[in-house]
């Protein structure tokens, strides 16, 4: 199988898996007062320090969560609630290409909490343009992702954070896709909050972290035992946290060589895809993108038809967005970038990761032309039927 969907999830690093299994064999609740509890707590705190050291945060700024979705919700809703309570600010600002974990959290605040929402537009490559942003002092929270999960566009986080800091606006960034792929440093970026997820960088699913500045207040989503600065209650997932820290440490330590190796392979993928399908359109920025990301539109094809055909040949990729019924909707990211719905529906994402090899690219390049031809035929049949 050629697995070209590492942005959806990537396989666990052997050392993270070992750490998980070893830890999971030992009993102990990190909140217990006896020796077993202290041992568990020690593993959690060591992990917190390892994560903090890797990402440029203080240990007290690391809040372990169940993953990216929870961290995004905690940042957006929690900071909104805290800032509204403290100063009556009700505006939420987010880019229009956020992951649904931010997008839908923001929309929920608008629908249920009376939030005023400003969606920041993006350019044709999916990037927010910092110079065009002009915010008032009614903003409770600003959220712009570090890198886009669909088209791989890197945002100018430093500039955006500096702008926000200058106006006293706490800024959150979803760095789920960026962490381990490009240099990410919490302190250097100057953001108030940053989301990390375990399973995108070689850790287990179901664990992640929100880096939350010490002076940033956030109202909890989960109430209970008061763990994690009282911001995130719930029994600490010791094996998950240890494996997560192991993966974060590894991914950040090897980020540069990873980016070179995977980026080179990705460049080859793009070049060869464009050779075998000359009218393929590369979406997203040509340069400032995630090293493992390639995202194309194949004119005349429907992405889900291509996915089916490639899947049948053992090639795993993604149309970039899914909904609960499994029906592909045109991507809000591509639409925000100015693509028409047809182009949005004709797109396919290939993402490389730490286990990717040239053989994966070879398999894709071998299968793609035939798949595109068939999908195009199916697209023509549909076009003839609907008269479009």
């Amino acid at each position, binding site marked *: 199988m050629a697995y070209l969907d590492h942005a959806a999830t990537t396989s666990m690093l052997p050392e993270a898996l070992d750490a998980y299994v070893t830890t999971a064999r030992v009993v102990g609740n990190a909140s217990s007062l006896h020796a077993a509890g202290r041992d568990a707590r020690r593993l959690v705190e060591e992990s917190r320090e390892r994560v903090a050291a890797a990402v440029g945060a203080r240990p007290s700024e690391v809040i372990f969560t169940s993953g990216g979705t929870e961290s995004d919700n905690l940042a957006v809703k929690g900071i909104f609630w805290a800032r509204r309570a403290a100063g009556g600010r009700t505006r939420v600002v987010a880019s229009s290409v956020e992951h649904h974990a931010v997008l839908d959290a923001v929309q929920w605040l608008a629908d249920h909490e009376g939030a005023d929402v400003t969606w920041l537009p993006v350019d044709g490559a999916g990037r927010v343009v910092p110079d065009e942003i002009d915010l008032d002092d009614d903003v409770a929270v600003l959220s712009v992702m570090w890198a886009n999960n669909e088209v791989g566009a890197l945002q100018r986080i430093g500039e955006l954070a500096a702008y926000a800091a200058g106006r006293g606006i706490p800024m959150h960034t979803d760095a789920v896709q960026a962490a381990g792929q490009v240099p990410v440093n919490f302190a250097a970026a100057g953001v108030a909050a940053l989301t990390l997820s375990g399973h995108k960088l070689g850790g287990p699913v179901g664990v992640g972290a929100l880096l939350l500045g010490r002076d940033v207040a956030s109202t909890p989503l989960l109430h209970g035992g008061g763990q994690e600065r009282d911001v995130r209650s719930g029994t600490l997932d010791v094996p998950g946290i240890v494996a997560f820290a192991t993966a974060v440490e590894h991914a950040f330590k090897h980020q540069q060589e990873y980016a070179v190796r995977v980026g080179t392979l990705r460049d080859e993928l793009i070049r060869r895809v464009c050779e075998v399908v000359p009218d393929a359109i590369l979406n997203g920025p040509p340069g400032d993108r995630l090293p493992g990301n390639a995202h194309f539109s194949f004119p005349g094809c429907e992405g889900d038809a291509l996915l089916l055909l490639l899947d049948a040949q053992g090639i795993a990729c993604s149309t970039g967005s899914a909904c609960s*019924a*499994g029906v592909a909707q045109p991507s809000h990211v591509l639409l925000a970038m100015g693509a028409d719905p047809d182009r949005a529906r004709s797109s396919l994402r290939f993402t490389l990761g730490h286990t990717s090899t040239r053989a994966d690219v070879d398999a894709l390049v071998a299968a793609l032309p035939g798949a595109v031809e068939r999908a195009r035929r*199916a697209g023509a049949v549909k076009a003839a039927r609907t008269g479009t």
Partner: protein
Amino acid sequence: MKVLAAMSGGVDSAVAAARAAEAGHDVTGVHLALARNPQTYRTGARGCCTLEDSRDARRAADVIGIPFYVWDMADEFHEDVVDDFVAEYAAGRTPNPCLRCNEKIKFAAVLDRAMALGFDAVVTGHHARLGADGLLRRSVDLAKDQSYVLAVLREDQLRHAVFPLGDSTKEQVRAEAAVRGLAVADKPDSHDICFIADGDTRGFLDRQLGARPGPIVDAATGEVLGEHGGAHGFTVGQRRGLDLRRPAADGRPRYVLSITPVTNTVTVGPAEALDVGRVHGARPIWHGEPTPVECAVQLRAHGETFPATVRRTDDGLTAELHRPARGIAAGQAIVAYRADEAGDIVLGSATITATDRAVAAA
């Protein structure tokens, strides 16, 4: 063969897919998302396009061990089936949306897409037989037979259709599903119209077409007997819901005899005026049998058959019924069958456009 199994989430299509896989075909399961705003859960036995049905279909595909996808056919379904359904009622006819779905969606939009993507055929869980001779026959389970709603398929569509259930009864299909470990084995049968979740067809049409009051007229006297809220609420042969305050002179019940959209008139009369001796159909599908032919015709879904002489005409079919049929509505299909031991054979079909009254016996 490389086949695409349309999986509704029900027991029939699950067993059909399983049989196709067991027969050695390379099977891919597809659930058709037909509702624009799918309900989360099934309510009762209606509908086939909730998220729960999609999940049931996915689980069945897992158990069978075949790949599974969801295809979004909501726009096509809405345009070709739902809009057509409303337009037909507005035109005073009584459509059959299942038939239209087979004609336009399952064996057109889906089949065409499947063929373009490299599949050889579409497999469905319909209860009908389609053998090596290419003839469409009734299911062995006459109570569940669906040949009536498949008779609209042309030969080029039937050539790429596979119906693995035709030799089995529904009971056998359920038992087999249980043996195969398919959780849908005891899922209730779906019936009624899948896109009208509450089963209230008249309410659905009222919402689509709005209130359109018009007269209810006596066929014999021309007298206006009352007012209706919309002719689309009536079907030829209907007795209930007329709400006529005055009884007929002879005290006998009155039935809808015809609907005239141009004047928005519902015409009523006695039961015997519903007796039809000749049926005309348009848009014929005919599988080559020379006509006139003595055969049996079925004039509504799950209806009885009538012995008849069927003739091809320039642009349709005409059936002379050897005994009168009562309450035949335009818009339904006329399907001609020839009796056969291996299952009655579908000779052809057409959409009923007009009927002639039976000559009353002296």
